[in-house]
C-alpha cells in the first residue's frame, strides 16, 4: 500500500498519462484478487468505502432499479444496522419490508422465508454470518428459494468473507457486500459484488458523479486502500484454511473453559458458526462492568446497553429470545490468525476472575444464591 500513498500517486481514472495507468493497473490487479476470493469475475466487483456503503448501494440500488417489478424486500431482524437502516429508508420511499424473526439459535426459518415471498418481492437480504454471535445462515437454501421465485438475493457477508469459503456461484448470491478491515485489510475500503450473468443484475447508483465503477459508484478510487484490500484477499485465499483451524481450536478452548463458570451460557447456534467468534452471557454481572476488569489488555465487546448511547441492549441477542438481563450480561470474543495460546490462557483467567469478583458485589448474584425469586420483585424500571 505504501508506494501508492507516496511515489505512485496517479489517479486510476486518469487515462492520459503513465501515472494514471500505473494506478489503474494496480486497481485492476486488486479487483482480480478480490473477485477470486469469492469466485466472481473482476467486472462484478464495485469498490466502495466499506460494507455500510455496500449494504446501502445493494439494497437501495435494487429497490430503485427494479421499482417497475415490485417494491417488497425481505430481510431479518438480526441484520447489521446498515442493512436495517437501508431497509427503513426503503420503507420511507414507499417500499414494503418484511423483517423475519430468527429462531432461538439465530438461524432464519426457511419456511417463514418462503411464506413471506409474494409477487411484489424483488429482493431477499440475508446476512451470510452474524457479527455478534457468528451464526452462519443457510445461504444455498435461501438462494434456492430466491431463484425459484425469481427474486434477487443480497447478502451482507462482512463477517464471512476471508474467514470461511464464500463462493457467489456455489452459494447463489446476486449481490454481496464485504469489507477489507474484517479480513486484516485497511479500513475505509470495501466492495459490492454485483452479478453480471444468470441473471444480469443492475443497481441504481446512490452516489452520482463521474460514472466510475461502471456507473454504479462514482468517486475517485481509494487506490492505496484497494491495493491493500486485494493483498488481504490474496492472503485470505492462501491462509483461510489454517486460520480457521487455528481460531476455532483456540475459540473452543476459550469457550469450554468459560462455560465452566457457573451460570454462563453460549449464545447462538454452535454448529453453524464462524470459527473465530464466541458470544457468552455471564448471568448476574453486567457486560460493561465486566469488560472494565480487563480492558487494558483484552479488547472485547458487550451486548450491554451501557456500551452504547442508546441504553438499549443488543437487539441481536434479544431476537434470539434472551431476556434483557442476559443481553446486558454478554461478551463477544473475536479471535484472529494472530491470537496466541498464551493470550487465550490469559483471557480465560482474567475473565473468570473478574466474573467471580463482580458477582461478589452483585446483589442479583446474592439473591440467586439465596433462592430469591427475582421475578417476584417489583423492580423500579427507569
Amino acid at each position, binding site marked *: 500500500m505504501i508506494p501508492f500513498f507516496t511515489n505512485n500517486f496517479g489517479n486510476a481514472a486518469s487515462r492520459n498519462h503513465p501515472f494514471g495507468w500505473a494506478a489503474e493497473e494496480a486497481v485492476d490487479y486488486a479487483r482480480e484478487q478480490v473477485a477470486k476470493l469469492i469466485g466472481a469475475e473482476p467486472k462484478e466487483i464495485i469498490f466502495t468505502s466499506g460494507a455500510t456503503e455496500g449494504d446501502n448501494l445493494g439494497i437501495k440500488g435494487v429497490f430503485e432499479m427494479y421499482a417497475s417489478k415490485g417494491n417488497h424486500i425481505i430481510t431479518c431482524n438480526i441484520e447489521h444496522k446498515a442493512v436495517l437502516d437501508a431497509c427503513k429508508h426503503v420503507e420511507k420511499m414507499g417500499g414494503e419490508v418484511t423483517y423475519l424473526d430468527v429462531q432461538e439459535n439465530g438461524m432464519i426459518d426457511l419456511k417463514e422465508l418462503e411464506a413471506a415471498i409474494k409477487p411484489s418481492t424483488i429482493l431477499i437480504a440475508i446476512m451470510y454470518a452474524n457479527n455478534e454471535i457468528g451464526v452462519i445462515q443457510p445461504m444455498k437454501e435461501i438462494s434456492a428459494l430466491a431463484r425459484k421465485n425469481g427474486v434477487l438475493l443480497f447478502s451482507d457477508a462482512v463477517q464471512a468473507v476471508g474467514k470461511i469459503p464464500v463462493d457467489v456461484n456455489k452459494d447463489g448470491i446476486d449481490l454481496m457486500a464485504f469489507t477489507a478491515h474484517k479480513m486484516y485489510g485497511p479500513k475505509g475500503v470495501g466492495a459490492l459484488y454485483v452479478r453480471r450473468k444468470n441473471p444480469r443484475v443492475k443497481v441504481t447508483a446512490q452516489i452520482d458523479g463521474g460514472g466510475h465503477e461502471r456507473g454504479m459508484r462514482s468517486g475517485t478510487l481509494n487506490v492505496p486502500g484497494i491495493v491493500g484490500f486485494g493483498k488481504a484477499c490474496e492472503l485470505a485465499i492462501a491462509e483461510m484454511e489454517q486460520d480457521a483451524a487455528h481460531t476455532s481450536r483456540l475459540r473452543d478452548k476459550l469457550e469450554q473453559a468459560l462455560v465452566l463458570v457457573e451460570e454462563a451460557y453460549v449464545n447462538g447456534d454452535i454448529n453453524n458458526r464462524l470459527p473465530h467468534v464466541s458470544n457468552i452471557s455471564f448471568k448476574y454481572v453486567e457486560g460493561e462492568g465486566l469488560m*472494565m476488569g480487563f480492558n487494558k489488555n483484552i479488547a472485547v465487546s458487550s451486548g450491554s446497553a451501557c456500551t452504547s448511547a442508546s441504553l438499549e441492549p443488543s437487539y441481536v441477542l434479544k431476537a434470539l429470545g434472551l431476556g434483557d*438481563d442476559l443481553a446486558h450480561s454478554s461478551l463477544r470474543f473475536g479471535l484472529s490468525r494472530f491470537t496466541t495460546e498464551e493470550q487465550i490462557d490469559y483471557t480465560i483467567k482474567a475473565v473468570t476472575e473478574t466474573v467471580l469478583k463482580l458477582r461478589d*458485589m452483585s446483589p442479583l448474584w446474592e439473591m440467586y444464591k439465596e433462592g430469591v425469586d427475582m421475578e417476584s420483585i417489583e423492580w423500579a424500571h*427507569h
Partner: protein
Amino acid sequence: MAYSEKVIDHYHNPKNVGTLDKSRKNVGTGLVGAPECGDVMRLQIEVDETTGTITDAKFKTFGCGSAIASSSLATEWLKGKSVDQALTIDNMDIVEELNLPPVKIHCSVLAEDAIKSAINDYRVKNGMEAIQFEESLVH
C-alpha cells in the same frame, strides 16, 4: 470515552462492598434499578438510634463501572453523616467527584435514589413517615 481515574479506582478497589442484616431495626435498605435496565443497586445504612448517625454503609451493585463507582462513593460519603445530612447528597455531587460523562449521569441518579430509598426504609421501620421525593427527571 475513557473512564476517569476515580471511577477506575473505585471499580478496582470498591469501598464497603457487603451486606447488612436487613431484618435489623436500625438498618435501612434501598434496592433500586432493574436487571432489564442493566443496573441494580442495593445500598444499606446502619444507624445509631440514639445519635441518628450513620455508623456503617454497605453496597452491592450490578452494573457498569460508573454504577459501581457511584455506589462505592455514596457509601463512603454516608458513613459518619446524620440521616438528615445524608438526604442532602445530590447526584450532581457524585457526577462532579467522579467526572461522569453525560451518558453515565443515570448511574449517579440511581445512587441518590438508593440513598433516599435506604433512608425511607429506616424511617418506616422506626415509626417515621416515608419522605415523598420528587420523581427524578433524568431517568
